[in-house]
């Protein structure tokens, strides 16, 4: 067939090199951040030694280093990697689905929903639950926690989406999400009000976020669930591109909107739910990373954005975890605090930049 209404011309060259370079740079960045994250901590391990250990060349100088790297640092760095990619991908999907630059797992109440799920499991589990419960309850406990958090996140997401069908305005939708988050938060507060202090403390510890509590089989569970979530997201890359134009146009392009929307919600809930269940709420990653990725790669094509957000999210959380070690000190800051301190300025940048763009 010949092209429709005008003589064919050669397709213009795509800015592919820039995208490839950007993705490659991100891979390198993730690698560096990963090595640095393993090296930093109360006990400094030389970077070269870390690199050698990670590449499997030779054993560590001493058993202590070997133990620290394999039993503590490596699982933690892997958790950061998994959590960062998962949160970034969930945020990207939400921003596209809601066509709202301020959408993210926390802004629309997903994190609060997961928190409610966790709170319910802790309440049912009686005393010693919480982030530590992952270790105490064993694999069965972690499954229960993941399921509860995912169910909580999915419940909130479904609620927001049901309301979204009646609301066309993005700003109103964001307010709806914030209100749902607020109600969910209030329920958790109510539960705390009627709970024993030690239960509250467990929950409070959980809300600080922790990457260090996930090891061994729990890490395998988390990685599997997040892997499934990211896989679903990658399968939705083409529908996500169509959804950029809004539902009506997406449908006119042949997209089965309801099915795609369900898949995207499922993926987002799996990602945000499981990560929040294991690591506690980690703020702003899901909100900020998609914007940074779009700016860095200069594209809105989800076939590029999804891998890009994965890598950048991993690099960012690894970097935040490095900062949380407060290099040169014995103190470790809660990860949620660090990501929020770094993420809030990014959100401000997005908000302040927007009117300039639309006025241009």
């Amino acid at each position, binding site marked *: 067939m010949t092209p*429709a209404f005008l003589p064919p011309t050669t397709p213009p060259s795509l800015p592919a090199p820039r995208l490839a370079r950007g993705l490659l740079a991100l891979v390198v960045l993730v690698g560096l951040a990963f090595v640095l994250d393993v090296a930093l901590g109360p006990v400094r391990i030389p970077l070269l030694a870390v690199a050698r250990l990670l590449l499997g060349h030779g054993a560590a100088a001493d058993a202590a280093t070997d133990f620290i790297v394999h039993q503590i640092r490596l699982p933690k760095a892997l958790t950061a990697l998994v959590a960062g990619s998962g949160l970034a991908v969930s945020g990207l999907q939400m921003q596209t689905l809601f066509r709202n630059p301020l959408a993210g797992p926390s802004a629309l109440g997903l994190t609060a929903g997961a928190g409610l799920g966790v709170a319910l499991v802790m309440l049912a589990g009686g005393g010693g639950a919480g982030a530590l419960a992952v270790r105490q309850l064993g694999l069965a406990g972690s499954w229960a926690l993941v399921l509860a958090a995912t169910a909580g996140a999915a419940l909130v997401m479904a609620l927001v989406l049901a309301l979204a069908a009646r609301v066309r305005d993005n700003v109103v939708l964001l307010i709806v999400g914030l209100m749902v988050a607020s109600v969910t938060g209030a329920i958790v507060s109510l539960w705390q009000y009627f709970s024993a202090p030690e239960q509250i403390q467990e929950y409070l510890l959980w809300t600080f976020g922790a990457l260090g509590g996930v090891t061994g089989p729990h890490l395998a569970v988390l990685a599997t669930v997040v892997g499934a979530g990211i896989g679903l997201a990658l399968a939705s890359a083409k529908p996500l591109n169509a959804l950029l*134009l809004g539902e009506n*146009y997406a449908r006119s392009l042949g997209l089965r909107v309801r099915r795609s929307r369900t898949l995207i919600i499922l993926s987002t809930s799996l990602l945000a739910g499981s990560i929040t269940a294991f690591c506690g709420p980690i703020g702003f990653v899901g909100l900020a990373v998609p914007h940074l990725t779009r700016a860095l790669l200069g594209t809105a094509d989800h076939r590029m954005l999804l891998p890009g957000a994965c890598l950048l999210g991993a690099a960012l959380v690894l970097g935040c975890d490095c900062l949380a070690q407060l290099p040169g000190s014995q103190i470790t800051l809660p990860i949620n605090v660090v990501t929020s301190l770094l993420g809030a300025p990014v959100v401000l940048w997005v908000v302040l930049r927007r009117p300039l763009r639309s006025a241009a």
Partner: protein
Amino acid sequence: MSFPSPQPTPALMAEALTIGYAGRRGTPRPVAGPLHLALWPGELVCLLGPNGAGKSTLLRTLAGVQAPLGGALTVAGEPLASLGPEVRARQLSIVLTERVEAGYLTVQELVRLGRYPHTGWLGNFSAHDHAQVQAALVATGTALFAHRPVGELSDGERQKVMLARALAQDTPLILLDEPTAHLDLPNRVALLRLLHQLARTLGKAILLSTHELDLALQAADRVWLLPATGELLAGPPEDLVLSGAFAAAFQREGLAFDPATGTFELHAPTGPPVQLVGDGAAAFWTRRALLRAGLVPTAGPAAWRVTVPAAAGAGLGFWLSEGPGQPAQQHSSIAALLQALGAAWENPAF
């Protein structure tokens, strides 16, 4: 000059179609209907009607964006509702009035989305897909800014990009809701010319709603006239104008459609009649000037008479004005003519 020859299957057909909204508590709120419509391959149809008559509702219903309240709707002989989304997307493309907020998406990336129903699971492009996108960019004049982000475009540029996306979709049927909004006059003319050309050369069936009555009357093969009464009239624009249906649809207090010029009279002159002698461009523009001055130009004899120069252009002639008890005067421009007539207007003898 070739005319589209009607083919056995209409690209779009509606029978006893009732359009409207399912209001609160299940009480339907019909806007118009029952409508009997057919859109044939190779024709450009303009949907015209006053504000609030239901043009957008009809267009959105035909596009499958909103459900009809009743009646049958077929696309290429198949009921629209029975077509799967992918099949429908290869039959019918749309341009809506809703604003697309697509931030970092570049013009080219947006137009490439038009190939969505033609590409596989991963959305990989064949040479044909690339060529279609490029042709759409060139035809709409958007190739010039193909790499700019959509967020930086003006409303008019966006309109053209959305049209390019619909063209890249390469469907036999294209529905456009007010595609001329936000465009300046040269761009509106170019758009209608392009659509007309697409209908002629590729046999596409194109329906667009617009408020550009002058242009629509010139470009449309047929007009669907949707008056506020909700009973649609279809036919070539000339028939609708001459039968008075067009004037009736836009009937408004103090506003008259002039079938002689195909325009709405901006002025409702109440002054004395002036006989206008002459023809061509000079006569046309002199007539306009007289109307604006509040005079009523007529062909028949009147107390005042204005003769226009035989040819338009600078220094080609003079306007002659003659009045009761006043010798013929020469005027070198319409400005001078109006001044002289204005002076006479002040004269009680006028």
